[in-house]
């Protein structure tokens, strides 16, 4: 009476052990548990952030185009553009910092020139008390206008590429880590 019990217990234990072994064999459980690495977190945040940046870039392009063709008041247009300059720069900087902490070499290299440009651009902004880089008195100069429009398009492209790269990198990190 005792023996079958013992047997059963042993068998159950055995089965459990086997099962455990089998489980370990069949699926990579540990990666999934540790799946959400810091790098993946960084990419997830960057993905959301860059979506905002894409919006900003589109907005910039639209605003500049409105200045060129419609008769929007440059003072108001610059005011609304200037409000978005620092948020964009901060977002980009935060992403960069996240990548630095997660040692994502390619993303660092990819973002470093833009960060440098942002710093340079803000250092050389016109004399103004509020935040921002767009000066309503000079924005209507054709070269300023075309420069800003070009900047908008280039940034839009940059952020779009970034977006898809981050998406890929996020999945890749999740899968391989």
């Amino acid at each position, binding site marked *: 009476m005792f023996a079958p019990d013992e047997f059963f217990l042993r068998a159950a234990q055995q089965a459990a052990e086997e099962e455990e072994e089998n489980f370990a064999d069949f699926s990579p459980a540990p990666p999934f548990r540790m799946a959400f690495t810091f790098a993946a977190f960084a990419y997830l945040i960057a993905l959301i952030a860059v979506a905002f940046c894409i919006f900003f870039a589109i907005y910039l392009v639209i605003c500049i185009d409105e200045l060129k063709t419609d008769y929007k008041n440059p003072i108001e247009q610059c005011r609304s553009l200037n409000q978005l300059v620092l948020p964009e720069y901060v977002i980009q900087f935060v992403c960069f910092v996240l990548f630095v902490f997660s040692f994502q070499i390619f993303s660092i290299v990819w973002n470093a020139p833009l960060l440098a440009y942002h710093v340079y651009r803000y250092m050389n902004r016109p004399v103004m008390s509020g935040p921002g880089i767009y000066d309503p008195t000079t924005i*209507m100069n*054709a070269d300023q206008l075309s420069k800003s429009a070009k900047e908008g398009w280039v940034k839009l492209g940059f952020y779009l590429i970034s977006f898809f790269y981050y998406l890929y990198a996020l999945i890749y990190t999740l899968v391989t880590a």
Partner: protein
Amino acid sequence: MGGNLPNQQPQLKPPDIQSTANGHFPSGNAPSYSNGPTNSSIPGFPPTPFNSNLPNAQYNQPPSLVPPNLTQPTNLGSYNQAQSSTPSNLVPTASLKPTSSFPSQPPYQQSSQPNPTFAANPNLSTSFNSSASSAFSPLKPISSAPQFPQPAKPNVAQQPNFPQQPQIPQPTPSLGYASMNGPANTVPNSSIPYNPPQMTTPSFQPPGLSNVPVSSSFTQPQLPPVPSMPTSAPPQQLQQNSLTQSSSMYQTSSSSMNGFPAPGPMGTIPTSPNLAPAPQNFPTQQRRPVAGATSAGYMQQPQQLQQTQQLQQPGYPVPNPYYGQGQEQNRYVDLRQERNLIGYGVDDNEINLPSTVVNPNVNVNPAVFRCTMSAVPQTQELLKKCRLPLGLTLHPFKDLKNLSIVQTNIVRCRYCRTYINPYVYLPDNRHWKCNICLRSNDLPDEFCWDPATKSYGDPTRRPELHHPTIEYIASSEYMLRPPQPALYFFILDVSSNAIENGYLHTFSEQLLINLDQLPGDDRLLIGFLAVDAMVHYFQFTDPKRPPKHLIVDDIEDIFIPTNSGFCVELAHFRESVRSFIQNIPTLFEANASTSNCVGAAIDVAHKLIAEVGGRITVFQTVLPDIGPGALKNRASSEKPDPKNLVTATDFYKRIALECTGHQVAVDLFVLSNGYVDLSTLSEISKFSAGSVYHYPNYHINRGQVQVKRFQRHFNRYLTRKIGFEAVLRIRCSRGLSLHTFHGNFFVRSTDLLAMANVNPDSAIGVQVQLEDNLAGQHTVCFQAALLYTSSKGDRRIRVHTLCLPITSDFSTIFNQFDLKASVSMLAKMASERALSNGEIADSKEGLLNAAIDALGAYNRSVGQRSGVVLAPTSGGLKMLPLYILGLLKHRAFSSSSQAQKRLDERIAAMLQFKNAPLEVIMLEVHPALYAIHNIDQFEESPQRLPLSYERVNRDGIYLLDTGNYVYLYICSGVRSEILQQLFDVSHFGQLDEDTVIEQRTNPLSDRLHNFLRTLQSQRGLFAPIIVIREDSPQRDLFTMRLIEDRTENAHSYIEFINHLNQEIQR
């Protein structure tokens, strides 16, 4: 529907810039017919009735076209005057120009080198070919036009052409028509009843052809040419000949015709008649083996052959007058040889328009509106290759004598809103084709009514088609709100420094004199504010009693103490205001406050008058050091910091933009004896369409010159015309776009400038870029329309239209280079660059490169040889290096230690470059030097002398006219009679520099003062006369402006040219 919008807007929004500009000025989008809320920000510009509902009342009452209440110098009989004024423009003076170009010739004759033009320059030939393939239709018919009796075939040229075609084109009207109808396929204008006098042939003839001697030269081809006359004479003598005797020009020009070689057997089909064969080559050509029978010869001389053939076509209508000039103009001068460039004078280029436009013979006053190129390059490549600046200078509100003012239904293009102008096309009497967008519009019926003759049917008689500058009295459609009263507000610095320098005395004296002359109607408003460490308000409550004096010391959070009485009707409070002005100097006599809080004062003043708009005049003597907009003394450090040129804070810019939004302009009078940080303070004027006046070292007792200057300037400032609530729109032809604007205003849109005030002493500059190929267009047009409220309270539109021909010919571009416009544009660009990034070296390099580029491009085009710097004798290019040198040595850009110390003066000079009209800039850059000790010995005005000290004799008196001052330089060896006559002193030692030179009763003094008055009348702003003795410490003022001499750290002119030469050779 559109008409309602402007009326609704004022209630919906505050009268900020957006609503104002939209309401006042139409967009280019033909908005009148679109409806829907999307257009509310794009102007609901009221439609001008175009085709149907014409207000017939308008043309039933033609006499009412000119309102009786005009006060400015207007031409009331403008319609009649239009007819009579045109003939003066008919005869082109260009035929006289080539004479002055002869002096350049001898150096080449002596050097006997192969002519540069013939050096088979690939650049040249390509440009010519491209012109042949271009769509410039008047040119094309040459090989195919049916009216040629002998179309150019390969064998034509093998025959001796001279006997074959004994006739030359006679300057008859029919020829003009022929040439006009030649390209008729482009513009069907044959039905237009053209006025024969307007179609005078001279404008269709190349200058050389229009003279009778030409025909004799053709009928006697075997005559030997007479080339030796002009070429063998020594240069100096030649120059005198050519300058004084106009008849000798005809002689030489006919002899050059004679000098054409017989055409070669090549029989080239003239691909393009607009080639510019260099006439200075004729003598040498004659001795060449004519006719390059070989293909090599052909390659060398294509231009020559074509030219020859062209001339021999019987009755060949020169397709475009302007190309014909090429043959006279393509002479050049070596800048390294020629010293007396100033002797050529600075003439304006003549603009020759194709005859297809309605009125090709009228041109806009070049002092008002001009382009750096009197002929616009057809393609971008061409513009790039010639490396000249393309831009406009515009003096939109200049005082004009014969301005025609009309009150009529304003005819505008319904697509691009261009105002009808003399350069539109009239295919028939029912339509007009816009010259900017090239679309066809209906012509309103009433436009055929001629108010002058009271006849009907001929639209070409209308004043709109006769005057490139015209002023319309606009209807209420052009108003956003009813015209506001004129408002003048004065902010006076009353700190102890201001009391010390005593400007308040001059201020109150001049204002009292001119109080009744202030432009405005009965509603004129006036107000005052005084500033030291606190803000002093003056509240007028009782017309009989002095104003209440309210002081607010909370400058960080400034407020308006009560709500009325700060800005009052002058008519009502005249007594009170008058006595107050009288008392101003004594009121603050004992003020000990040294601080100044002008930032707060401007802020509160603009809020005080924001509802009405108007003009704030700020007088500043010290650096504003407290309150908002406080500044630090940045000039105290020894080392000049480039950042000091750049504005320190954007406080003043922000206020200026707010002011612009409320139609308030701020003018700044700086009467300092120290640093006031003009670069920062001036922003208040720069962006609110004001002006800046700078009087360095102002002191009522010690600086009489500046006091006098301030007094006269302030006098003019108070009484000159003024326009309120102005917007300026500049439209330009397709293919061109406006790039950057220079001047004092706020750029509201790509082609719209918001100017709270306009005044007759401000000018603007616009950089233009060529975006497209201009092929297919005959002309390029720029139209500047200034919409403003006059001080009498009516809304007016002043329209200037500039029309320029297009060229694809490289040499024509250089010949039509406009020196004045270019120098002014370069000065503006350089100032802008220096003020925005603080690097003066950057600006100087830009200026230098402008000279190198332009001359380099020209020298490459004529085939470069080492050791010479060539420039065409016609056009202004030959003077460009001189003026560039003048700019580099001007105190705005000079690197001398003196200029660096006086930061404010440098900035004032730059600000002046940005805002001053053309004539002042030209004199500032290159002052005019005259010898006046013998002024009574000649009938005519003295000649300008080169700006070199070697022209200054020890026994002479010289007058140096710079833009802002006139210097009278008296050498020590001057004869005592002269001194006696002019200054009433017996010898040089007694001469006092502070003396006021008065007119005395003797011929010398009379002549001098007449001459001074003449000089004064040529500029808007008064320039005081400063007497400088040869041994005076002030002598530098005079000698520093002799720009051809070497200075401590700048080249002499010769060195500069040599430097250019090195750079070009590289």
